[in-house]
């Protein structure tokens, strides 16, 4: 796959279709691939990496990149594609300045999962069909790829790239039975005390690094509420339980209806906080109360929070809905 993508990138540059390419290159370690802009075929030959760690969603970077001179090529996985469309709907990116290459994807891996499987001293990870060949300082190990997937890939909601100029590989289909709400349902079935304890144990680990916000394509406000110097909560670690709750409730609320469930927030959180459980709660509630909605699945539909019907449920429905068992 990497060879095909590199070839395409070079071809696009050389034919003059684009003057730069947005892709991945190795960060500090081979497994922390970071987004990068390439302007010459030599750079692409040398640094461009597409591997099982190319989870980073390129859409957000297009906000800035698409406003620069000339066309930029971007590689869009299915989950990134939803953010790509959502940002177009929000008029945040200039579509004419982008050459989008859709990628068929069968899942990205998480280094944490590999470590948790007890594999230490990893120096390389190669994909070989369904297995990962893992080179370590103690010799070569193998692991089934499905056991090393990112959470969002285990519950992959769609293999379909909604909008692109060409595809590498076959475009796939949406999968509504991906089980991504199972964990949310488990939490809903707990008692309020258990839920409170669960979320305290999760959210109290937050160091307010803001990585979840920075990486989120929906969190691309020019001025974020959490940067307001008068708010008392700007650019600092949470000083109390309240500030932790406040940050997470408000952030999840702000992206409700625009969050495509791309899974980036959970992927980058250094504290492994399952942020997807907050976003999916909103998505699940909106699906149940206002009809199925997937942000970024099309160009026309209105997000449920920017819409209404005169017969909507009253807020008191919350008292009657699950959660007290």
């Amino acid at each position, binding site marked *: 796959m990497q060879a095909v993508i590199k070839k395409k990138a070079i071809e696009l540059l050389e034919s003059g279709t684009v003057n730069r390419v947005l892709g991945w290159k190795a960060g500090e370690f081979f497994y922390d691939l970071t987004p990068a802009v390439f302007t010459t075929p030599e750079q692409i030959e040398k640094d461009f990496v597409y591997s099982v760690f190319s989870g980073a969603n390129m859409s957000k970077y297009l906000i800035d990149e698409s406003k620069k001179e000339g066309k930029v090529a971007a590689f869009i996985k299915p989950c990134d594609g939803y953010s790509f469309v959502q940002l177009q709907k929000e008029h945040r990116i200039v579509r004419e300045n982008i050459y989008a290459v859709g990628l068929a994807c069968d899942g990205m891996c998480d280094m944490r999962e590999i470590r948790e499987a007890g594999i230490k001293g990893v120096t390389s990870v190669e994909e070989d069909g369904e297995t990962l060949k893992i080179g370590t300082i103690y010799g070569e190990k193998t692991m089934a790829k499905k056991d090393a997937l990112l959470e969002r890939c285990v519950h992959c909601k769609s293999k379909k790239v909604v909008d692109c100029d060409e595809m590498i590989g076959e475009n796939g289909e949406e999968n509504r039975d991906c089980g991504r709400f199972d964990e949310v349902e488990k939490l809903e079935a707990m008692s309020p005390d258990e839920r409170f304890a*669960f979320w305290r144990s999760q959210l109290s680990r937050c160091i307010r690094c803001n990585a979840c916000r920075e990486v989120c394509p929906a969190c691309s406000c020019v001025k974020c509420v959490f940067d307001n110097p008068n708010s008392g909560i700007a650019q600092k670690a949470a000083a109390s339980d309240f500030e932790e709750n406040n940050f997470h409730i*408000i952030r999840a*609320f702000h992206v409700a209806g625009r969050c495509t469930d791309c899974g980036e927030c959970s992927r980058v959180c250094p504290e492994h906080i399952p942020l997807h459980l907050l976003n999916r709660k909103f998505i699940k509630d909106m699906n149940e109360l206002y009809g199925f909605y997937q942000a970024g699945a099309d160009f026309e539909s209105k997000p449920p929070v920017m819409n209404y019907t005169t017969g909507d449920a009253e807020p008191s429905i919350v008292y009657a809905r699950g959660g007290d068992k």
Partner: protein
Amino acid sequence: MQVDKNWTPTIVAFCCNWCSYAGADLSGNNRLSYPANVKIIRIPCSCRLNPMFILRAFQRGADGVILCGCHPGDCHYTTGNYYARRRMTLLFSMLDYLGIEKERTRVEWVSAAEGAKFAATMNEFVEAVTALGENKRLEDFRCKQ
């Protein structure tokens, strides 16, 4: 645990300028009583209620927060309360999901003519929150004396 018999909850009531705020006025004119610990904050429309206002109220010592607006269909700005209705439903559900007592938050539609409903709603809400006790799960210990 010792129960303080004299404890009364602090309630913040966000009231829409065009209906519930006038409803509160009317209930006063009619000499109907509701507890003095209901603090009314006037907002231009129920949909002006930023979810952060609710969280801030809890942070700074509220034990219950209620939003009062025009009946659906009667919004001064035509559709504001329809949006508020969706937002509050989602927010309350999220608070419940985080294990915060969902009875601490409420939405009631009270028109300018419903002074009696305003007083009754407040009495009932104060009673419900008194039964729940102090807000512990969304408080900010730094804001307590």
